[in-house]
């Protein structure tokens, strides 16, 4: 029995409306040929726990070899005009930092709260600003929304 799957790239069918919508929406909205009250979103069906859901999502990301582009905004603190960067083109934190250092013509690092260097921070899907580099790269890709290169003394 075939069902029509409608892909809606920009509508977040997530039940939790406090989370900002993804720039790449990996959720599908499955609608079935019955009453409109019968809808399963990819966030609540099938009934599996968050940890398994995340594991399978990461697996999909890896299997696709990041074919889906992941453009996010990058700002340097003090500079009003930002840049856009496709994170899917980087293999990990090293290549990201290298590229950013080149793009902004300064030394950008992550992790250590160094008073001399520009430290890279990111805004995650909860809206919080975090230090780049703490979590595994795949996980970072799933949660990052934007990047900010801070002035050294701020951290």
């Amino acid at each position: 029995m075939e069902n029509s799957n409608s892909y809606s790239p920009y509508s977040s069918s997530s039940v939790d409306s406090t989370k900002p919508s993804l720039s790449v929406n990996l959720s599908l909205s499955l609608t079935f040929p019955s009453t409109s009250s019968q809808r399963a979103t990819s966030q609540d069906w099938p009934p599996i726990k968050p940890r398994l859901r995340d594991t399978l999502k990461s697996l999909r990301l890896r299997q696709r070899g990041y074919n889906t582009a992941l453009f996010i905004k990058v700002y340097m603190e003090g500079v009003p005009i930002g840049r856009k960067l496709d994170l899917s083109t980087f293999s990990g934190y090293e290549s990201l930092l290298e590229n950013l250092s080149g793009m902004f013509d300064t030394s950008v690092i992550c992790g250590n709260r160094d008073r001399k260097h520009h430290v890279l921070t990111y805004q995650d899907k909860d809206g919080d600003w975090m230090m780049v580099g703490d979590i595994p790269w795949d996980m970072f890709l799933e949660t990052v929304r934007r990047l900010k290169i801070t002035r050294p003394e701020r951290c």
Partner: protein
Amino acid sequence: MNYFPDEVIEHIFDFIASHKDRNSISLVSKSWHKIERCSRKRVFIGNCYAINPERLIERFPSLRSLTLKGKPHFADFNLVPHEWGGFVHPWIVALAKARVGLEELRLKRMVVSDESLELLSRSFSSFKSLVLVSCEGFTTDGLASVAANCRHLRELDLQENEIDDHRGQWLNCFPESSTALTSLNFSCLKGETNLAALERLVARSPNLESLKVNRAVPLDALTRLMSCAPQLVDLGVGSYENEPDQESFMKLMAAIKKCTELRSLSGFSEVAPLCLTAFYPICQNLTSLNLSYAAEIQGNHLIRFIQFCKRLQRLWILDSIGDKGLEVVASTCKELQELRVFPSDLHDEEDNDTAVTEIGLVAISAGCPKLHSILYFCKQMTNAALITVAKNCPNFIRFRLCILEPNKPDHTTSQSLDEGFGAIVQACKGLRRLSVSGLLTDKVFLYIGMYAEQLEMLSIAFAGDTDKGMLYVLNGCKKMRKLEIRDSPFGNAALLADVDKYRTMRSLWMSSCEVTLGGCKRLARNAPWLNVEIINENENNDVMERNEEDEREKVDRLYLYRTVVGARKDAPPCVTIL
């Protein structure tokens, strides 16, 4: 019995451990009630809002071990807003204030803060065991206080929690004098782990039987850990993406060989197949195997591994094992009692025929005579298969079948699966938990109401035609405790037919059904001993809209539960308690 002094009766009661039995004893007479409550050490509270901490402490002053559950089960599937409730803090505050000699705390689906953990760690000098399952709201800072202050800590078990990881220094907080650990599980932590601190901790814990590390513990560290803890019974490994080099592999295998007591294995998220083979030496000793996160290991590797696990009693696996794999399980694992098969392809993206079907389920039922619990995610099912399974396995206690596509009929006859599930409930007289799926009419509920006499928990999704379905269940299942329903056409008539039924149940959940605000209001009026909660997350808290509440408006999510302490005061704006 009443001619014995109280101490003797109390001593006799000591032998009665189960909560149900102790609850029964307390109903026999006033004196038994008193003796029982004063000597009761372990209390289980299935719904933290059914009672409050003050009354708990008043009744059970000798409390040592407390189990609390918060959010309803469907919270696991993102159906309950994060801020819904289930805060443990007031409980810890009350227990601390009353100087209860708390030794064990087990929480499920509750909100725990660092503040709560800090208070816990400072208030109970004999505290021994903390088990947190599917909880959230705390960080590794909270864990640090527990590690630092609970001098007698034996067990720290964190299962599937949402923990904000502040980078692994909490392990350093276990004092050097801490040598009593028997169980440490931090597999759900997402960040880096201080490996040196972990190794030192494991080295000085000779009684450590259960160790479950997180993904950030690399292979060489795991090898060292196992080398200094060959007494381990239960091991959860980390994540090993790359194939290990020859030397690392040999070292790992040598360490594993020494762990002759190892009976349970889990973890394995992103594990290269070679790492799995390192465990071959102890395969035949395993009684429990959880490979449900090993999404990258292909079916043939899984099969090769399981072929050696002849003593397996519990197996959690992904459907990538396929029907062929389940046939191997059926012929190898004759001691199997519990099987869970999880989906690996959520959006039907792979055009694979390797996922499990009814064939695998039938094979398992035929090959494993001791099977009593099953959770099975699959793409298709038939009535014939379910009828065969029922015949093969009349001993099921838990039967949960989830067909991934809602409303999917028997794929060979295009009929509903009423007869199949009917056969299950008729044959399995001891069935306590059931989840149904696929195309189902009211008839399946007629069967459930008629035959499922021991059923305590029922999960329904996308099933039924009319209110009759739900009524069959409410009228028939005398032992029903938890009923959870989503996306099914049950409405006010079913909800309101027998209000007193809810006195005998812990809770009822209904989401995306046909119940209206008016129906819920009427229920709340007729049953003041119930908390009737309406959850409307999509509402914009617009005062104007609220004033024009239409009683005919369908309720998005309804959660009702019996309580002796009335409406809770900590509900967020999206929850209305009628």
